[in-house]
């Protein structure tokens, strides 16, 4: 894998973009004069870095934040917020297309998705959200914001734009970049990534998505619903490699129903530009085919940003594939330096960075010994249906010789899901056999991202299935599926002495 240079980048010429850029990287920003020594220097102004800086500053620490490009990182500028704003419109398109099922359809020819307007809305959303990530806002909260390439010069020093920042503790949160597969002809043909796709103003008529991970699946479905003819190519035999196969199967079904051309177990071997189109040669085992597209979107995965950080000078161990090596306390091999988020491959995604912020602040500044593994951190792929997970997978439990039982509730067993016409999917809660301890859960449902929070809360609070069965939900709600699972656990557990006594009582 190499990082190729030829991305398709559309010009940014939009008032919302001006507001956004003025907040996340003001053109006239002047780096402050460094303090003698900071309690905490945060290298990387993404979601996790900013949260950590804010929490440390609130606690009274002197904090410097170093960002080489845009504050807010991938999450705000080229990922979570941007894609969710776009997915909101695409989901609406899907609903309108399916509205006939609910007695409210409209003739197909009367429906028109305005891609330009949807992108404009996305930029407006991004500009609004960027306020809390703005350089001036952070500065007002007592954080020294430095723009420029930060580079460690020693075990407790870092240089940015010729200025040296001395620190007591540092956090590396530089994130990751899109991996560009080494496909002959790709660079010459041009391609989109998460960095450039949100700059589009015109919808590609035919889009080839290479990579079936969360980003690839989300965007493939969104563009298909906007009216592009999307083809998605995935090297593995199923989407979302880390998720449960039933969830991946349900997603695959949903994407096929949307009309996406699905090529699993397939690789793009070569790409060439024709007169008016891009031609991709796809290979599945020994079968070859050629797909024509107008644009290519790359989503094969991300690699940690570790180059040019001076990690050797700081005595921080890392490797190019897995990023910075950390322990459960988020410490690197240099006890003064911590790392979190995408730059540590095992712990990706913005919400993990957010969860890590608190740990870093406590462990770095207040002699805390909080463990990342003690957290129950959920995540979600925001396709339709959504795929959300928290805690262990069954395979992980079995690898650790933990006997596991899964309580499954189909969404078509849930009254509200039936009423909503959103019966696709399931709730699976994994429980340690012989106990009511929740090990993890997967939810595949239209609102899985919201539903998983109930289970995440239960796990964080140490609530087991028996207590969960006592939690009341408003009726009818889709989240009641979780209570149904808990009830089923209670109903199928071995009779206790109390059950026996109750039965005896009723016989009296």
């Amino acid at each position, binding site marked *: 894998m190499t990082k190729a240079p030829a991305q398709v980048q559309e010009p940014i010429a939009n008032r919302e973009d001006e507001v956004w850029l003025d907040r996340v990287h003001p053109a006239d920003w002047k780096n402050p004069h460094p303090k003698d020594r900071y309690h905490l220097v945060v290298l990387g102004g993404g979601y996790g870095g900013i949260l950590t800086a804010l929490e440390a500053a609130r606690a009274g620490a002197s904090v410097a934040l170093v960002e080489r490009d845009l504050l807010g990182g991938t999450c705000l500028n080229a990922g979570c917020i941007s894609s969710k704003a776009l997915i909101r419109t695409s989901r609406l398109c899907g609903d309108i297309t399916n509205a*006939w*099922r609910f007695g409210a359809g409209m003739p197909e020819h009367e429906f028109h998705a305005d891609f330009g307007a949807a992108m404009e809305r996305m930029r407006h959303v991004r500009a609004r959200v960027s306020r809390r990530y703005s350089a001036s806002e952070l500065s007002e909260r007592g954080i020294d914001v430095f723009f420029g390439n930060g580079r460690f010069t020693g075990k407790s020093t870092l240089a940015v734009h010729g200025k040296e920042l001395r620190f007591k503790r540092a956090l590396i949160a530089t994130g990751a970049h899109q991996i560009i597969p080494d496909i002959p002809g790709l660079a010459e043909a041009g391609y989109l990534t998460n960095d450039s796709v949100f700059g589009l103003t015109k919808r590609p008529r035919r889009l080839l998505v290479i990579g079936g991970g969360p980003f690839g699946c989300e965007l493939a479905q969104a563009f298909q619903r906007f009216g592009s003819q999307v083809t998605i190519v995935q*090297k*593995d*035999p199923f989407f979302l490699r880390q998720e449960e*196969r*039933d969830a991946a*199967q*349900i997603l695959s*079904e949903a994407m*096929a*129903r949307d009309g996406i051309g699905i090529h699993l*177990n397939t690789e793009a071997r070569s790409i060439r530009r024709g007169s008016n189109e891009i031609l991709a040669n796809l290979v599945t*085992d*020994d079968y070859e085919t050629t797909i024509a597209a107008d644009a290519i979107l790359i989503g094969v995965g991300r690699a940690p940003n570790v180059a040019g950080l001076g990690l050797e000078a700081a005595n921080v161990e890392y490797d190019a594939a897995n990023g910075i090596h950390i322990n459960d306390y988020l410490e690197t091999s240099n006890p003064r330096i911590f790392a979190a988020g995408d730059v540590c491959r095992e712990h990706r995604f913005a919400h993990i960075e957010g969860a890590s912020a608190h740990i870093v602040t406590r462990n770095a500044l207040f002699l805390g010994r909080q463990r990342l593994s003690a957290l129950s951190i959920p995540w979600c792929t925001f396709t339709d249906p959504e795929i959300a997970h928290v805690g262990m997978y*069954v*395979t992980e439990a*079995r*690898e650790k010789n933990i*006997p*596991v*039982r*899964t*309580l*499954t509730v*189909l969404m*078509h*067993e849930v009254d509200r899901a039936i009423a909503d016409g959103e*019966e696709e999917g*399931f709730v*699976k809660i994994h429980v340690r*056999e012989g106990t009511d301890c929740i090990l993890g859960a997967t939810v595949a449902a239209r609102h899985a991202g919201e539903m998983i929070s109930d289970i995440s809360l239960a796990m964080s609070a140490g609530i087991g299935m028996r207590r969960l069965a006592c939690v009341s939900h408003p009726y009818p709600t889709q989240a009641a599926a979780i209570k149904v699972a808990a009830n*089923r*656990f209670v*109903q*199928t557990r071995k009779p206790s002495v109390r059950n026996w006594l109750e039965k005896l009582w009723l016989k009296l």
Partner: protein
Amino acid sequence: MFNPAPTIPRPGSIAETSLLSDEILLDRFEERAFRYFLECANRENGLVADTTRSHYPSSIAVVGFALTCYLVGIERGWMRRDEAALLTLTALRFFHGSEQSEQRNATGYKGFYYHFLDIRTGRRVWQSELSMIDSALLMAGVLTAATYFAGASDTESEIRDLAETLYGRIDWRWAQNSGVTLTQGWKPECGFLHYGWEGYSEGLILYILALGSGPHALAPESYAAWKSTYQWETIYGRDVLYAGPLFIHQFTQAWVDFRGIRDRFMREKRSDYFENSRTAAYIHREYAIRNPGGYKGYGENYWGFSAGEGPGVRTMTIDGAVRRFFNYVARGAPFGPDDGTIHPSVIFGSLPFAPEIALPAIRRVCEEDARIGSDFRVPNGLNATMPGDDEGGWISEGMFGLDQGLAVLMIENYRTGFPWNLTRECRYFRNGLRRAGFSGGWLER
């Protein structure tokens, strides 16, 4: 010369079917399914056609089913023992003498065989894969035949010798491709396929036989690795080792009697693979009763989702609802995919485990579709939602060998347990089961 055209069975009618006792009804279906193998076998090399459709090749898995079905035919008086022995020997001689090499048109390699073979020449067709599971199903038939033909005649003696040779030369460890679990296939054009045999599936018989052989047998660790992705789920209030398509719960079970024998996983769960197949049938039935997709016909006696044919890839508006139909896919319950298609062979496949729900479903299918009730044909797929040529909805054309094989073995297992009794006596099955960690019941005797 080989002629795959099926004979027309004795006529019947739906009204007559309803008057038949369960025993006679099942006998009719079993015999009709058995006749498939006589009608579709090439007597010159023992290969059997995958389907009754013209120009279809032979499937090695169907040959595996055929070799065991011949034994049922002998016991039922539908085939003479010497005729069955000769047909079996012809097949074994063919496999023994056929080309084993890396050539693209060979018959096999490393002791395994290509999934589809030209029924006349016996060479690889359709650029099919060297198939580990289909080779295992073939060997299941080979080994049961060798167990049954225990006579002193030259024919029966040669059957036993060839079976030992064919089974013993399979290089199971090569099929691991340096991993722990088995790969699903290999092609001379691209090497091993990306898919592996991991998690509960019909691959259970593959591991049992791969563990039970001699020089190239897998280590027990491979079975443990295969089980590592097992999911023990409570679905519709029933505990089950989950797999969606119903045939997964039946292919290994067609040969192996799992009553009372358990591996470590089933010991922990206090269940066994027999009970699990019963639960799976009930889950399919429950799914059909709930019928979340609103498909026509589904109900307590109309269920059975599996890998098989469908009405074809198309989208249609039927009774105001947009319906997407599929071609050949692995349908399953309760997670789908589901396009309104059921696969009757797995209803027959449920007979030994849950006869109280399978028998009414067989009768319902006969009533639902006159084309089944009148000639006792087990079709591959039925779809009452998709309009067919007449009122019965869509029905797949012709007959598939795997369906007939499953129907014969499972009806017979339900009626007498004869196929199960054969493998109980086969040392390779016993050895494989023991090395996989199975114990208890008949394995201890």
